């Protein structure tokens, strides 16, 4: 049994047919072709599937597509526009990217933080990214990149 959903993703309007139990992650990846959003645990534990709903990070792997109706969804593809978002640029320049599989989720979680708190402390960055797993970097360069994007200290 499929339903028709109206979604607003990265500023564009979409109609998708999906089951009521479909998760936003699968709709984004399989129906809209927005494959930048990643699945790594499928149970809301690792943050790889993070997207922004009205600017707030959510785990799209456990977020029903119906919940997204009436809200503005931002995926990693919608973050930068024609140029890289400062967080994206900082990640690329500060060694915050190794395999990169977790990167879209981290970038979105960090961008949401900087919208809310433009000049966070290192502790605020660590707290905001506590729900995202990275298996490669050991996190420190990610924290440094976010602080750099905010114009703060990078030590």
């Amino acid at each position, binding site marked *: 049994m499929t339903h028709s959903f109206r979604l607003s993703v990265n500023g564009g309007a979409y109609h998708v047919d999906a089951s009521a139990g479909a998760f936003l992650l699968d709709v984004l990846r399989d129906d809209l072709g927005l494959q930048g959003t990643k699945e790594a*645990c499928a149970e809301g534990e690792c943050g790889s599937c993070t997207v922004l709903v009205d600017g707030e990070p959510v785990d799209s792997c456990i977020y029903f597509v119906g919940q997204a109706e009436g809200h503005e969804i931002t995926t990693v593809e919608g973050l930068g526009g024609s140029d890289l978002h400062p967080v994206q640029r900082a*990640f690329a320049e500060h*060694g915050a990217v190794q395999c*990169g599989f977790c990167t879209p989720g981290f970038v979105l979680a960090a961008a949401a933080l900087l919208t809310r708190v433009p000049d966070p402390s290192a502790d605020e960055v*660590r707290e905001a990214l*506590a729900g995202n797993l990275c298996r490669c970097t050991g*996190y420190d360069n990610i924290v440094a990149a976010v602080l750099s994007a905010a114009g703060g200290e990078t030590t």
Partner: protein
Amino acid sequence: MTDNALGTIGMSVPRHDGPAKVTGRFEYGVDASRPGMLWARLARSTQAHARVVSIDTTAARAVPGVRAVITGADTVEYVGSRYIRDEPILAHERVRYHGEPIAAVAADTEEAAEAACRLIGVEYESLPAIGSVAEALAPDAPIIHPDWEGYWVSPMIRRPGGNVLSHASLRRGDSQAVFAAADHVFEDTYEVPMVHQASLEGRVAIAEVDDSGDVHVWSSHQYPFGLRQDISDILHIPLSKVRVTVTGVGGGFGGKLYAGVEPYCIVLAERTRRPVKLRFTREEELVATSPRMGATVTVRTAVSADGILLAREGWIDYDSGAYAESSPGVVSVGLMTLGGPYRWQALSIDARAIYTNKAGCGSYRGPGAPQAVFAGESQLDRIAVELGIDPLELRLRNAVRDGDLGPTGQILENVSLVETLEAAAARIGWDTAGTGDDSGKGLSCTWWTTTGMPSSAYIRVDEDGTYVLVTGATEIGTGAVTAGVAQICAAELGIDPADLKIVSADTATTPYDFGAQGSRTMVQAGNAAIAAASDLKDQMFAIAAEKLACQPDDLELRDGEIRHKDDPAVSLTVSDVARIGGTRGGLLGRGSYEQPPTEFDTDSVVGAMIGAFNIPSFATHACEVSVDRQTGQVSLDRYVVAQDVGHVINPTYCAGQVTGGTVQGIGQAMFEEIVYRDGRVVNPNFTDYKLPTLPDLPQIETVLVEVPSSSGPHGAKGVGEQAVIGPPAAIANAVRNATGVAVNRLPITAERVWSALRDGRTG
């Protein structure tokens, strides 16, 4: 354009694949697709050990959208495991672990394939399951592989038989005599559980078979040439009919070095004449994909009254799970690392890999070493405490130096252990006084190899003067290719690495490389790129000399031009030369590199696939913890790692390997364990298999020590794996320093610390 001969060597230039990864455009294995592609899923054993009486696929075949169903009866001839061919791709007649693949389905959708898998009916006749190494070694233990004698086995392996699949041993010096005369003898036993690579992207591949039977596999893999060989061996397909193209790789850490998902895709693609994709779920990853072996390690050490280490005996029983996979090679790492980087009069170490009814174990960053080093380095601190010697001083007294011999008799060169000890001790502010509030500091030392074996490269120059590096090396995320090798190659060509194009990791288009394993890529593929650049320059200079009416030796490559050294006005652009070269078969520099094997005392080891550490490097870990005596909770307050990397090619990514490896090691030390209960994994998800996250960690204080190697590019040594080895012992030693008690089993959880405190356990 760079203006010195070293180019960007030593500079933190950004990696090539950074922009695509931060924008989400980078294509990983999970993102790849092919027209007309089907999806595969596997049905898995629900028993840890059983005879398979019958398999009924009738209902599965009736599921709409199902295009093929195969079982072990269809794949009897397809048996994997690179060193002992003991692992059928689908279980046939017998299952040996809970989660073992028993059937494979291809369908129009992944959901249909999954639904079909659930409808496959299997009748089992249960057999007693072996849950531990001790059970496997019991005299009346069931034999997990009753037909073991009939298996093909790599000639390097000593295989005692029964449940013991390989046994490597090291004998140097007369350990019995040394022990008999020693002032002190210490003996302890340590336990290490299985842990998982947990790359965020699991195993995933697509296979397509064309009308002539040629196979093309797209896989998220670390070693395309090894995978091609595995596929050829397992499925009996000639090597030349198999092409492996590596997709983007979302982490590997050793978990993507062998055939995994690919054989199922290929067999199903052959049956359906459609491309087939298979990806594993997180649960499948944690239940059934080649984790790090668990181990029971008993270590006995003879020491003089003044703290000189004399001799060590050790017995390492690695839990290989139900299949050999990489275990026969990994056991030899136990021989190399149990003694640590210290001087010994005698060593006697036995390391065995033993079958149990668990997932077959594979390679994970620094395979074999964390288990042994947790034991060896933890015991050193017991020795230090009981002899009243500072743990730093004990290590300095016994540390290997230039010219000393390694455990198997290799002559050690460019040794940096003391430098790393001093750097780590200075950074942490070493003392063992504690602060009186249950805090303490701990140290551990490690050494590791830079794996050799061949790497090759081509460098092409296109008509517009753009250089294209064509390398068989694989970028799995470390930056070894897209930063390190690119910088090394660009320096030889006098260009900015950003202007170099890179084509990599495709068996049909790139030359051979031994793969992203063993901390080898930047060193070996870097040396190959240097050789290819030299060959290319010779070709370019020959053309330019002809056109400029001079000798090749008169010329130099600078700023995109080939110029006369004495008269820069006499020049051609690289583009000019490339256009001429293009009419003569093209300009293609070729180069390869293979490290000469490191010599060692071959009589000292038996059954060891690895007998020496090539271009060895050294590291010291130091940390500070505080322990809550009420709960046993350990807080990791500071963490310092000082690792010798030979020469830093890219400080950011070099430190990134050391920091990232350290955090994986902290995970093994404090959180991670694949928990088996009654033959099945009870924590196959990221909620219950706990990876380190930011709140668990202090900022890692990473110190790069540079003691150059004599054969790595610019003096570089391997970097990638070593940092994962040191954390368990460093943290255990800090807990001992803080509380006086020993935790001899990983992970060091609050419960284990609390129990050790309750029992007053000191050894």
